[in-house]
């Protein structure tokens, strides 16, 4: 039985309010985000358009030459439906220029480079447009570390980082994200035919049920097993969460003074806002 069902009306109100208030309180009114054609960035675009008005949302579509053309079509569809500003910035020239120096680079390095290239485009437009970069990583990806550090994991504000993929699906449907995007298989689109679930080796729905009990409810290993989760699966996911924890933290600083940033120099980011 799923424990992940959410009141989408209430969730929508909280996330829309979050984007609106966290942007307005720093004296800005615009947001910029990358639209991949997938559900996570589509949902964030819907939230941002409602929070700020479509005229204040700037979406950038950043295909690489091997990206599935369907992805760009879906991203454009979101842009058109919402009436937000939408532009295409190809990352092929920048990425290829770099890998001409390192022709033997692995697919992992290439995928990470693409994610980080997109990040630099977004942060450049953040300065250009006086807009904050919205993150599009959901809680499932963040916990599993299924993302690129300083790439797609980088943002100024992330409205969906505390909701699981299964909840992203529910909220997307409720907010009217086009069904072809809601229903397609999630993919990082790094090579043709890639799907997240194939690469991960389990489905989002399975892992979300486990993560919710493990992380949110703090069930013990014994209790999880009693709930029907295979011990091998529990251990695999626990290890993924543990081993990717560095991606969820700021760089660690060697302490020598009496007040070290984030250890004994502690302020909220909204300090004075």
């Amino acid at each position: 039985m799923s424990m992940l069902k959410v009141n989408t009306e209430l969730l929508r109100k909280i996330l829309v309010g979050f984007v609106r208030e966290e942007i307005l309180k720093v004296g800005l009114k615009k947001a910029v985000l990358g639209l991949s054609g997938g559900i996570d960035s589509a949902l964030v675009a819907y939230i941002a358009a409602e929070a700020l008005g479509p005229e204040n949302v700037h979406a950038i579509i950043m295909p690489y030459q091997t990206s599935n053309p369907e992805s760009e079509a879906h991203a454009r569809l979101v842009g058109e439906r919402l009436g937000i500003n939408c532009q295409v910035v190809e990352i092929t020239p920048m990425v290829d220029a770099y890998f001409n120096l390192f022709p033997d680079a692995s697919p992992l390095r290439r995928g990470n480079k693409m994610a980080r290239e997109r990040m630099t485009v977004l942060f450049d437009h953040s300065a250009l447009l006086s807009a904050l970069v919205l993150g599009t990583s959901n809680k499932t990806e963040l916990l599993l570390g299924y993302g690129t550090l300083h790439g797609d994991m980088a943002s100024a504000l992330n409205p969906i980082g505390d909701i699981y993929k299964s909840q992203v699906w529910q909220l997307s449907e409720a907010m009217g994200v086009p069904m072809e995007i809601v229903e397609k298989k999630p993919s990082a689109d790094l090579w043709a035919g890639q799907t997240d679930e194939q690469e991960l080796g389990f489905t989002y729905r399975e892992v979300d049920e486990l993560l919710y009990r493990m992380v949110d409810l703090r069930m013990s290993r014994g209790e999880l097993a009693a709930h029907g989760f295979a011990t091998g699966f529990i251990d695999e996911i626990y290890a993924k969460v543990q081993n990717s924890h560095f991606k969820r933290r700021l760089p660690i600083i060697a302490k020598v003074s009496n007040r070290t940033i984030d250890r004994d120099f502690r302020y909220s980011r909204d300090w004075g806002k």
Partner: protein
Amino acid sequence: MDFTVALAQIKPKLGCVADNLLLIQEAVERGIREQAGLVLFPELALTGYFLKDLVPEVALTLDSPEIRRLADLSRHIDIAVGFVEVSPDYHFYNAALYLAGGEILHHHRKVYLPTYGLFDEQRYLASGERFRAFDCRFGRMGILICEDMWHLSAPYILAMDGATTLLCLSSSPGRGISEAESLGSTVSWQKLTSATAMFLNSRVLYCNRVGYEDGVNFWGGSEIIDPSGTVTARGAILEEDFVVAGISEELLRRERISSPMMRDENLFVTLKELKRIGKERNR
């Protein structure tokens, strides 16, 4: 006596005392215009909530110009407001004042500082050491600051000390999304305020803030609960609001006649047993 209360469900700015003082003054003036006798503000209304190392920077003494200013305004309307207090020995408290007639009528320092989950208050603040009821022109009252209310003994002591109106100043973070109509924190608080009023045959006036700090929302939903535990007015959820409602003396009188649990509450049995428990724990 009958009176009108206003619950100022505001959105303080984190660490900005001057801005928040203006916000509070505006709400006080609105309360005066709407002929309220008492205006209630959230916990840490003058400072915002997740202060961390800002605590010493935003702390005020009881004789600071800001407190003086609010005390002056209390010549026109009673004011209950939360702030960070610094004592002469440089302890910092999550505190609340009841201001009336130009004076500080009552002063409460939060006793229960939550330090678990997303809370970190004991790291930065000192704990208060008393719960005392006090008399004002509307009867006998007691003040609780947020987590104080989660400890049964706190409202119990105030009610045994004669309070028939409990003021609760709150900065409650919204969390626990599910299929339910409300957030988990909302559901828990609504049960708590209602049960507290019902158990103690006392009114509860609950003022919670709104806004976001570092992604944490404060859910609002300030409310007035009558002595039977029934909610008679409630503020908007997740939005600023200004709730104005009448408080009836007759309702209190009738509830105390029909449900005289506080009359029958046996202070001496409670004291005897608590003393025994204290002794046994010390063994």
